[in-house]
């Protein structure tokens, strides 16, 4: 019997236990279903606490015959995922309503998706990464189509599913080819077996297919087509979730595979990544300008952000990795909060999704205006928000790696992105509403989530050291 060091697996175990507790509690009919959400939050919070502790203590090791690697990197990503999960659950509590009977599965699927992400970050074996990816994706397909009585939600689910499964197939074939070329799928073994001479068409095409697969998953131009449709159609909370955690998970695996397993191929993949980063940033930002629906706008913005994060990957250094991790964390927080603010803007007629619906909102709902403005400013990368520091850090790592032109394009893109982010702010504060709208009262949990996110964004913006030092320790 192989012995297993359970303490290394604590965060995952906590999530699995929470999952089953929710599953059991869901069967009790008389129970208020809101409890399930809180159980989820508590479970995720415990897992978060455990992960942070492990990160601070510096607990590292591998488990399951080397397939599961607990190190600073995976623990930090765990933190990203768990924060996303907690925030999304917080904003979901009121979004799902009280009478919705389908709450149990919702939280279970969120937890399963979280678990999949954690596996992706910690997977030290391509097949684990694939399985984690699938666990996450499958849960998300269902979540995207969760409101089956809504045609939009079902459609979003279907589009996500078809393109997601398509991408998975590419990813899998890539793994197969790499397996053929190197003879192993273990990430450290690949790295040791590879050397400069081991270039072969098999390996290169495997690598290329991996890029395509990841490209779809993290929505990189030109593999991004699913993102806007899915974000628009999916329940807003789920759109927030998809834009945050899974993207981080995709990058976690992306960076682990390309920086840990294929560092010797850097000359081969670097050019592709740089090119992708450029077109992703530019494409995402430019198309975002034309959007009238705020969810679609946020979708394109999240595509553009994937481009910024790719810069960190292209830098191919510890610093680049650290900056991408930093950026992913704050990106997750601010993006979820932005979606949360969109939910908050729900009026009596339903959600206001058109940007023109936001006219005059800033003065009539000052709190909401403040949140949304803060988040949009952070997304645009204005100081003193966390978004600014994140971009700065990424650009710094890229300049260090010598990609000055990439940084210039990135910085110009920041300016372009300011245009459409600020346009929403413009609408909120500078236009009069076309018609008087009734508003629902603020759901307290949603506000709580937004307050937490806002404090986080500002705190990290003002005191980035709080986050930078742990990350640098984590990637060392």
């Amino acid at each position, binding site marked *: 019997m192989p012995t297993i060091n359970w303490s290394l697996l604590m965060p995952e175990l906590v999530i699995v236990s929470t999952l089953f507790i929710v599953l059991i509690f869901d069967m009790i009919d008389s129970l208020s279903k809101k409890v399930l959400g809180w159980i989820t939050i508590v479970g995720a919070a415990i897992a978060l606490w455990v992960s942070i502790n492990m990160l601070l203590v510096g607990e590292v090791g591998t488990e399951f015959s080397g397939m599961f690697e607990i190190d600073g990197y995976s623990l930090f990503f765990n933190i990203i995922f768990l924060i996303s999960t907690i925030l999304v659950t917080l904003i979901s509590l009121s979004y799902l309503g009280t009478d919705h009977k389908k709450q149990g599965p919702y939280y279970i699927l969120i937890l399963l998706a979280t678990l999949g992400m954690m596996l992706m970050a910690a997977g030290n074996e391509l097949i684990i990464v694939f399985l984690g990816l699938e*666990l996450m994706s499958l849960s998300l397909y269902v979540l995207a189509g969760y409101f089956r009585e809504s045609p939009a939600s079902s459609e979003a689910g279907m589009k996500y599913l078809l393109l997601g499964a398509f991408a998975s197939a590419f990813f899998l074939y890539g793994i197969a080819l790499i397996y053929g070329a190197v003879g192993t799928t273990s990430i450290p073994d690949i790295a040791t077996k590879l050397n400069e001479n081991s270039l072969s068409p098999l390996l290169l095409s495997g690598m290329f297919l991996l890029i395509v697969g990841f490209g779809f998953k993290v929505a990189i131009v030109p593999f991004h087509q699913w993102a806007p449709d899915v974000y628009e159609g999916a329940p807003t909370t789920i759109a927030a979730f998809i834009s945050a955690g899974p993207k981080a998970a995709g990058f976690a695996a992306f960076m682990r595979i390309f920086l840990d397993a294929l560092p010797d191929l850097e000359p081969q993949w670097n050019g592709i990544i740089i090119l992708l980063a450029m077109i992703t940033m530019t494409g995402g930002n430019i198309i975002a300008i034309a959007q009238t629906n705020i969810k679609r706008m946020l979708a394109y913005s999240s595509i553009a952000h994937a481009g910024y994060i790719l810069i960190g990957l292209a830098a191919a250094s510890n610093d680049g990795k650290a900056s991408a991790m930093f950026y992913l964390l704050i990106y997750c927080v601010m993006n979820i909060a932005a979606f949360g603010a969109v939910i908050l803007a729900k009026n009596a007629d339903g959600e206001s999704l058109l940007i023109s619906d936001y006219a005059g909102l800033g003065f009539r709902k000052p709190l909401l205006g403040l949140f949304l403005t803060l988040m949009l400013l952070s997304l645009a990368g204005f100081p003193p928000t966390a978004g600014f520091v994140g971009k700065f850090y990424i650009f710094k790592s890229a300049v260090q790696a010598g990609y000055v032109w990439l940084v210039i394009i990135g910085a110009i893109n920041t300016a372009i992105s300011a245009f459409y982010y600020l346009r929403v702010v413009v609408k909120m504060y500078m236009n009069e509403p076309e018609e008087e709208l009734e508003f629902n009262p603020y759901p307290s949990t949603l506000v709580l989530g937004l307050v937490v996110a806002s404090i986080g964004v500002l705190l990290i913006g003002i005191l980035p050291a709080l986050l930078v030092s742990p990350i640098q320790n984590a990637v060392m």
Partner: protein
Amino acid sequence: MTAEHIFFFIFGGVSLIGAISVISFRHPIYSALALIVTFFAQAGLFVLLGAHFVAAVQVIVYAGAIMVLFLFVIMLLNLGTLSLKGALSGKLKGVAILLGILLAIEGIYIAVTTLNNPNTAVASSEVAADTSYSIEEIGELLFKDYLLPFEVTSLILLAALIGVIVLVKRGNQQEN
């Protein structure tokens, strides 16, 4: 021409024809049947490769479960024959086929160069002659070294189970 060659070309040919049929039949039912044929032929290839276990699982899972689901849904939705015009996307068709041909050429090129490239693991490895693995060995590996993926698979199935129930189980709302 050994027996293996013959069988390879039979199974390979059938699977290719089946695959092409999948994408060219107008009616989903025919496509599904063609896909079943392809899967069968692949199971045959797996047997040729000494992977008996995989071959059996291929038939059980793909032919026995997955494709039945497909047929079930096609019948349930009773999708009439779509005209070929509507079945194919016009603007993409040319590009797709071109892309496909390029991809295929590339794939063949890669495969052919594989053996000539001593850096590739498959080419440089000493091919183990006739090792066919027993289920015991597979089982041991599965429950020792590959315990984690195995457990994850169970979670994936749990996700699928819950997801499907949520998506198609009827009437929770109506009852309220």
